[in-house]
């Protein structure tokens, strides 16, 4: 009734109007033909495969670089460090590969309700971030040995100290970022539990 006396309020759509306005929006008509969907699905698969190949190639190149360093380094400590870095790299690559296999395939998306799907996704992300140390720690022994090797090689103390400082900052920064992300995920999981 107030609408009749208030000219501003008269322009305000009701909740029913809003719903109608929502459903009557002009559409872009992005409907695809069956052939087009099939083609795009194949394109999408090719793109995913391409990224997998890029990832594999990158890990492969890093392994080659590390093997080469093991080969050319003369200092025993540095060689041992390079070997450990190589092992860490392979371990991390394996973990990522295992994680990527656990991703939800599109064909099962209709089996889970929205809350189940969202929770499962958040739990996977939390698991990944909870294991952050497992991605960082494997590199520490190798890196430590390389630094020790360089220190014993007679490099200036300032150079070795700077290297240690940079390494610690990077490790701490990565762990802090991951921990921050994990707290956000945990808050979201807690909120879902209350639903």
């Amino acid at each position: 009734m107030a609408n009749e006396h208030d000219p501003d309020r008269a322009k305000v759509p009701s909740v029913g109007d809003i719903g109608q306005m929502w459903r009557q929006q002009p559409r872009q008509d992005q409907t695809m033909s069956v052939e087009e969907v099939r083609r795009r699905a194949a394109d999408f698969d090719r793109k995913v495969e391409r990224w997998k190949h890029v990832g594999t190639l990158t890990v492969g190149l890093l392994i080659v670089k590390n093997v080469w360093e093991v080969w050319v380094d003369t200092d025993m400590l540095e060689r041992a460090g390079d070997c450990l870095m190589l092992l860490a790299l392979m371990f991390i690559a394996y973990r990522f590969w295992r994680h990527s296999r656990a991703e939800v395939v599109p064909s099962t998306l209709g089996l889970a309700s929205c809350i189940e799907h969202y929770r499962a996704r958040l739990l996977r992300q939390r698991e990944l971030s909870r294991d952050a140390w497992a991605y960082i720690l494997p590199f520490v022994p190798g890196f430590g040995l390389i630094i020790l090797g360089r220190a014993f090689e007679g490099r200036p103390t300032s150079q070795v100290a700077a290297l240690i400082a940079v390494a610690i900052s990077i490790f701490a920064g990565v762990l802090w970022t991951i921990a921050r992300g994990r707290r956000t995920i945990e808050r979201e999981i807690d909120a879902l539990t209350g639903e």
Partner: protein
Amino acid sequence: MEERYAEVARTFGAALERLAGGYERDPEARRDLVQEIHIALWRSLARYDGRCSLRTWVYRVAHNTAISRVVRPSASAPTLIAIDDSLEDLAETVDREGGVDRRRALERLYALIQRLRPLDRQVMLLYLEEEDAASIAEITGLSIANVSTKVHRIKQLLARQFYEGSHHGE
């Protein structure tokens, strides 16, 4: 399966586009999401066994695909400029007299939806598509009572948002 997909695309095509707009502000990202949803539907329909209605299945696939995309840690916040771009497209299709209010209302509505947390967003999008509480509960996995409460709050939120918004916007 091809016939079923064609039927789904025909029946839900417009709703899926609106749904994508609730997740992605940027028109380009929105188009990509619509395509991603169609591809996910195409693939998922082979697994559809009639345990739930086709409607529930379609909305589950669409929302789950959208959520997977939005909650990616690398996802960046959409820009305001993109909203104006998409609204300019709409402006040409509505009549001059009522166009401005309608455009503003839709702009506010999308901005409101995109600010909502995932489950609230899903409930709101389904409510706007005229799904009843039981259907929304089946799609989202929430209880009917919880959905009813959320729908009640959504109505209040919409009423407040549009009433206050209209005054601030004048």
